[in-house]
Structures are given as C-alpha cells and as structure tokens.
C-alpha cells in the first residue's frame, strides 16, 4: 500500500533548521563509525594504559564525559550531532580507550531477544 504518496514534498518539514557550524568538519568529513555503535550503547572508559596515546581535541572532550553514558547522552552533553559523536566515540573504542556494553544486534539470537524482552517487560511492570 502506498500511504506515503499522500505526503507533501520531501523538503517540507516542521522541525528542520539551517545547520549550525558543528557538523562533520570535526571528524574531517567522516560519517561512518569505525565500529558499530548503536545510539543506546553505553560506554565505559578503560583504565588508562601507557601504551595508548591520549586523545586530543574533540576526542579528549568526548572521553572526559562518556563514562557510563550512552552515545545519545554523550551527543546531548556536548551539543554534538549524533552522527558526529558516534564517529568520535567509535574512534575511542577502536583505539582502546573505551569499551561498549552489549546491546541487541542484527546477529542476536531469538533466545537473546526473548531474554531481553522479558527483562524489559519485568522492569516496566514494576517501575
């Protein structure tokens, strides 16, 4: 069924506005993260190691605020577009500064999905 045909032209929108300056220039134009990183994934900062160079610039800012936060929360805290925060965070993950807590992925088994849905339902029912 083609419900979408009823909609108006693709450039008409309620909530878009001209972009501010802080776009993907921060990532030198890169929009694809080096590791898969869902918006809800929680980050944990690793114990600093002498083997890793400390990040500088925007990446250092991200490292400072990201512990126990999700990708979306990091973006909101630093007023960065989601995609930009994700590219920077994925760099930190790839370089070993940060680890990622588990989320559902496209490879999750039916058992894993069922388990997560049941945990969610239980949590909602008692919340």
């Amino acid at each position: 069924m083609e419900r979408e045909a009823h909609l108006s032209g693709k450039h008409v929108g309620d909530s878009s506005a001209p972009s501010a300056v802080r776009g993907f220039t921060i990532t030198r134009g890169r929009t694809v993260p080096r590791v898969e990183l869902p918006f809800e994934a929680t980050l944990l900062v690793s114990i600093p190691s002498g083997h890793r160079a400390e990040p500088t610039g925007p990446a250092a800012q991200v490292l400072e605020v990201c512990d126990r936060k999700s990708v979306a929360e990091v973006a909101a805290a630093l007023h960065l577009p989601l995609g930009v925060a994700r590219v920077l965070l994925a760099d930190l993950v790839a370089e070993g500064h940060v680890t990622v807590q588990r989320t559902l992925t496209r490879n999750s088994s039916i058992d894993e999905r069922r388990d997560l849905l049941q945990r969610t339902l239980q949590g909602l029912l008692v919340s």
Partner: protein
Amino acid sequence: MDSEPSNKQGPASTKIVIAGGFGVGKTTLVGSVSEIDPLRTEALVTDESEGIDDISQVPTKHTTTVAMDFGRITLGEDLILYLFGTPGQKRFWFMWDDLCLGAIGAIVMVDTNRLDEAFSPLDYFEEKGLPFIVALNQFDNGPQFELDAVREALALPSHVPMIRIDARDRESAKTALIRITEYSLEQLASQVPVG
C-alpha cells in the same frame, strides 16, 4: 579485542522508538515516563544523503539538522531503556535505519486530526519488519473516532495492536511501552527458529 562487548550478561541497554508527526506528543510521552528530563540531540540531514560516506567529498551539499528528543528509564540494576522520539517524514528514513537497529519495537503516535502523518512511519516499520503498535494520543478537543475507523483509515492489518493513551499521564504512557514489549514478544514467539 577491545571493541568486543564487555558484558556477558546480556544487553545492558535497549530502546523503543516513538514515531509520529510534528506535535503529536512524542516528547510529551517521553517526558512522562523518563527518569530524566528529555534530552535533545540533533542529526544532520543532507540532501540525497543516501549512500554518502564522506561528505567532505560533496562540499556543496545542503545540510540541515533534525531534532530528536530522548529519555531514559532504568529497569533494575543491569538494564537501561532509552526512548527515542523521531519525526515521521520520509526524508528522515536514513536516520531510522540506525534508530531501529536493535530496537525492541516502535510506537507510532497518531493524532486523529492528522492521520496522514502516520502513513510514512507505518510504511517504514512494515517494510523493515520492526514490531510496532499504534497509539492514539487523546486530545481533549479532538474528534473521538472509533478505533476500527482509524484502523481502516490507516490501512492497518488486524494483528497490529491499537491503543488509546494520554501521553501526559505516566501510567497511560507506560501502558504503551508495556504493550509494544508484549507484542514484540508475541511476534518473536510466532517466529519459527531456524538452525
């Protein structure tokens, strides 16, 4: 490897997508159930953004942003549920692929005064196979349609749950979250395991 998930206990966070037209009450719903004030973030929208990996190669591209509000509910010690409210227009579909990956499901919020704004999200979730329910947000002065009439107007299959909610009310908003989670479980149970 450092980039491997570190928690062997199962996912530590998950999400539900709240979709619908402008002003339908997405942020209100998120705010009613979230333990934090809804946070606002932005995604960049570029014209013809599909398939573009490196926008430094296309410097003339016109870029706009779209606001997305989200909230958080801690469910026990080891699970956080995020709620992402997202605009419904088709030009944001590029963002929904990211938004929906790993999501429990979606709640499509409908204003009976503007049913057509639900068409695009409904098409998307049907196409992607993400479980979704339809929630009619009750506006005090809005016409009181019968659910069956709305289902017909939306060309909604009979198995898709429809509920009425008051997005301002925490318990009412929570029923929408519970219903989509239950429905997602039902959908999973109807799948035949392969291999």
